[in-house]
């Protein structure tokens, strides 16, 4: 039964991907990309990757669709030209596909416990986590503590993308580009004249925020953590911005607060590492943060997950505001 379900999901993935590439309407392509992300999230869940499925659903199907739609609103909706050099591209792609296909025959068998990837470090992580860190979710333990340096680099990448988009889209547009706000597009009004989305979004936004905080703090006990929580909290504010208008959202959570979140999260993460150094151990060694090394590890993981959540929220919301405010700049 699982085989059937897996085969069905994978086939749907391929069909959706072909449809995305072939359609000329970019709006349809972005919507199909959302469906593609959700299907691949279901597939990840089938492959026992619960954390990854949650992240892909929240970030890929949720935030990515909003960003693409924001960019589509500022550019054109249709793809104009036909593809030149179509047969040459197809030939190159087919050649590359055959090479990679030939390589897959050497791959280890699916689900084999003796495959090389399960041999060296992974059993050590699974064995030693109850002893050194003592939290149930091994993925968070590896992400936060054993591979904390990688996650620090990732927080810096997210931060860089945020300030990159702010640099690109903060400059004022020339007078030719500005569009006079008309009745339907007035950003100050948003969608407030529509009662049903107004009521439902006002009902749901606090619960989405609450769920985001739940996911943030339960990252150690189940699937969750900073990235998913950041995406969820950003989604709550984006929902509010879609209904109430982007300017009101900037009054609720001003750009200064978003900058503080962005910078503060990365500083918090780096700061925890430096505190470790000041206590005499290496950078990002959490065991010295408390008297008991295990408690120190748990405290360190909570702090850095908070830093990650802060940065991701600040960056995603800043990018959304940068796209949404571009019209009226």
């Amino acid at each position, binding site marked *: 039964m699982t*085989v059937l379900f*897996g*085969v069905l999901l994978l086939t749907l993935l*391929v069909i959706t*991907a*072909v449809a*995305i*590439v072939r359609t000329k309407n*970019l709006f349809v392509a972005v919507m199909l*990309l959302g469906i*593609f992300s959700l299907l*691949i999230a279901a597939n990840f869940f089938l*492959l*026992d*990757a*619960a954390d*990854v499925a949650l992240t*892909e659903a929240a*970030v*890929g199907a949720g*935030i*990515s669709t909003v*960003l*693409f739609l*924001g*960019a589509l609103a*500022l550019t054109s909706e249709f*793809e104009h*030209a036909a*593809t*030149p050099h179509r047969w040459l*591209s197809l030939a190159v*792609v*087919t050649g*590359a596909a055959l090479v*990679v296909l030939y390589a*897959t025959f050497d791959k*280890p*068998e*699916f*689900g084999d416990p003796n495959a090389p990837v*399960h041999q060296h470090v*992974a059993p050590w992580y*699974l064995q030693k*986590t109850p002893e050194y860190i003592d939290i149930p979710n*091994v*993925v968070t333990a590896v992400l936060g503590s054993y591979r904390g340096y990688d*996650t620090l680099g990732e927080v810096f*990448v997210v931060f*860089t*993308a945020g300030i990159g988009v702010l640099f*690109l*889209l903060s400059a004022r*547009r020339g007078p030719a*580009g500005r569009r006079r706000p008309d009745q339907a597009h007035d950003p100050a009004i948003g969608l407030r004249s529509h009662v049903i989305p107004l009521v439902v979004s006002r009902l749901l936004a606090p619960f989405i925020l609450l769920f985001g905080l739940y996911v943030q703090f339960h990252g150690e006990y*189940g699937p969750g953590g900073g*990235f998913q929580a950041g995406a969820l909290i950003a989604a709550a504010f984006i929902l509010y911005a879609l209904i109430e208008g982007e300017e009101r959202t900037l009054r609720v959570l001003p750009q200064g607060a978003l900058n503080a979140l962005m910078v503060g999260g990365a500083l918090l993460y780096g700061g925890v590492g430096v505190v470790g150094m000041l206590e005499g151990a290496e950078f990002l060694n959490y065991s010295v943060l408390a008297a008991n090394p295990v408690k120190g590890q748990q405290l360190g993981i909570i702090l850095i997950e908070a830093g990650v959540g802060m940065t*991701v929220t600040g960056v995603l919301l800043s*990018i959304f505001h940068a796209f949404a405010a*571009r019209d009226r700049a």
Partner: protein
Amino acid sequence: MEFLGLYHYWVFVVLLMIGFYAVVAKVNLIKKLIGLSIFQSAVFLLYITMSKVSGGTAPIFSEKITGVLYSNPLPQVLILTAIVVGISTTALGLGIVVRIKEEYGTTEEHEIQEIDRR
């Protein structure tokens, strides 16, 4: 079970090549970014396929369940990072596309090259 494993790898190859074709052959910049997103998702599928252990479960300990096989947590951590990095890159790419549209007036690659050549 072996058919399912091989099917996962074949679907990975097909998705990889679909994304690659969109990046290489399409002229619209946003279509290229969408193709890049599909390409990245195919790579994620490969890693998570490699992390699965048959008969295993998600690597989350629980007091009620003991003595069970766990799937490999390490590729999941790598892919978690990769997903967020992918969305950051896509967001930055979309920002650049918006600015290109404002400066050149078009998002089609051949028209941009035409304008540059003049």
